[in-house]
């Protein structure tokens, strides 16, 4: 038996794992009965359903008629940079304030573009800062720490 459709194969694996995981995690909650469902009833049912579907998908990926598909190349750089930028923003916003967080977010995420340039990034950071201040702080009156905490003390 060969894996023909790699995408379906790994989807199947993902679903089986997730379904089983939820079923296992649900064991700590009371099952109850059909008439009086406990917190564990529905998740267990769904987990089982999901694992079952995953198995069907996995088997289907190895069937004769399956479309031969491989998974496309994964761009780790783009993933890493964008997500790192978001994580850094979330980490720095409370203590270092919005201004610092914004520059870090725009700076780190911009590097991921194949057309990256320091100048454009710097200019757009400033423009976005002013824009955000006008629209989100003044206009929509959203609350978030602007300056680093050691400056506002």
């Amino acid at each position, binding site marked *: 038996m060969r894996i023909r459709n790699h995408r379906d194969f790994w*989807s199947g694996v993902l679903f089986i794992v997730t379904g089983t995981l*939820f079923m296992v995690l649900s064991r700590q909650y009371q099952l109850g009965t059909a008439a009086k469902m406990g*917190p564990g009833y529905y998740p267990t049912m769904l987990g089982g359903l*999901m694992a079952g579907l995953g198995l069907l998908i996995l088997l289907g990926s190895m069937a004769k008629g399956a479309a031969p598909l491989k998974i496309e190349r994964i761009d780790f750089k783009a993933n890493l940079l964008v997500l790192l930028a978001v994580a850094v923003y979330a980490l720095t916003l409370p203590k270092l304030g919005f201004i610092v967080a914004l520059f870090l977010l725009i700076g780190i995420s911009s590097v991921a573009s194949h057309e990256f340039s320091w100048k*454009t990034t710097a200019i757009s950071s400033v423009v976005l800062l002013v824009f955000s201040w006008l629209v989100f702080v003044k206009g929509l009156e*959203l609350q978030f720490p602007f300056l680093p905490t050691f400056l506002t003390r």
Partner: protein
Amino acid sequence: MELLNNLALGFATAATFDNLLYCLIGVILGTLIGVLPGIGPLATIAMLLPATYKMSDPTTALIMLAGIFYGAQYGGSTSAILVNLPGESSSVVTTLDGYQMARRGRAGPALAIAAIASFFAGTVATLLLAAFAPPLAEIAFKFGPAEYFALMVLGLIAAVVLAHGSVLKALAMVVFGLLIGMVGTDVNSGVARFSFDVPELSDGIEFVAVAMGMFGFAEIILNLEQREKREVFTNKVTNLFPQWADLKRAAPAILRGTTLGSLLGILPGGGAVLASFSAYAVEKKIAKDPSQFGKGEIRGVAAPEAANNAGAQTSFIPMLTLGIPTTPVMALMIAAMMIHNIQPGPQVMSSNPKLFWGLIVSMWIGNLFLVLLNLPLVGIWVRLLSVPYKVLYPAILLFCCIGAYSINNNVFDVFMTIPFAILGYVFKKLDCEPAPMLLGFVLGKLMEEYLRRAMTISRGDWSVFVTRPLSATLLAIAAVLLVIVFLPAISKKREEAFAGDD
């Protein structure tokens, strides 16, 4: 007549200065993000949702958000015609003939017919919404928990059947969404499920964080992978007034598109995208000279444009009358209503008539704004298209982060977008549709509630779903849909229909 009274109330509500202003803001913003590829109404509405909390009147908030949604359908056609780049997935078909018309110097008539078709469809859809909402809500009042559960099952299955790609995988995605929706405190027992002792998770995962991560951030990462390169058609667009011959030719297509769009918009998983694809396919099938399609056939622009606008608006019907979202955007609308303490469902019409009718009428007003504004403003939209992606996407990231933070003033929600971004990326690579998952996520706890209640009332008897007539009917339809889609003949047709999409 009841309908006229309701419409009058709607006009009185929608025509206040505030509501008109926010309607205008909504449609302009919608057109803007519709024109720009890489950002769509889903991410935008998700971003602005927390901000609407500050608005005192929920009607105003909904009017603006709705404006963003159907405004994006207008904007998407502009970039489709001028740049061969669909701003929205519902405008993909418009690129086929619209861009060809632009290349032959007929961009003006293409844009004009697109706008007129959209306006006509929007008007009709608004009237349909006004006419059919009350009777539908009436039926909904007869619904008990078993019926609601069956309806949601039908809704999710219909979404799966009408969705792109493998039905089995879409079903699994729905279940995935349902499971993730389980995170949080179980209302019945007070037990905090799957929260791993993290206090922020005891209320469940924030919907906005999931939407932004899976649809916003994942999209950006995928775009970066593809190295977006755009060639903008910045030739002067002249001659915006369509010729009479064009109108005559397009008219039947507009009618067909509107009808098809209105019907498909009501179905879960359908909405604007399915409507536009189907309308194009239908036009091509019944045309006397199908070879013209793909070369600048104006019916190839008129029909999908009418269909996507009709579909966008009629997709509000299930949400407003039954409280059931048929697409992720509708799920956001429901979230907006709940932020303002309005419980979506059939009672909205009687307990908040101003909101209900005001929203419906505002859609027509919004369409009016759009058709009047879009044509003169085409030049501005074109110039905007030349903003390089490398500037655009960090801005999108920023706005999403700001939005996610402002839900609870907690960076936790910003962090939550990250695993869902990864998930969204992985799903795309594995050919798994994210939209069914989002629907499942929204409906998860609700479905469990209804299942529980139905079982409690029937004392554990599962046959209650088939012994009650309404519920049985709904489940039967769902079963029929599943059978149909698995029949070999139909599954081939489905593959063909979606092949043009890739």
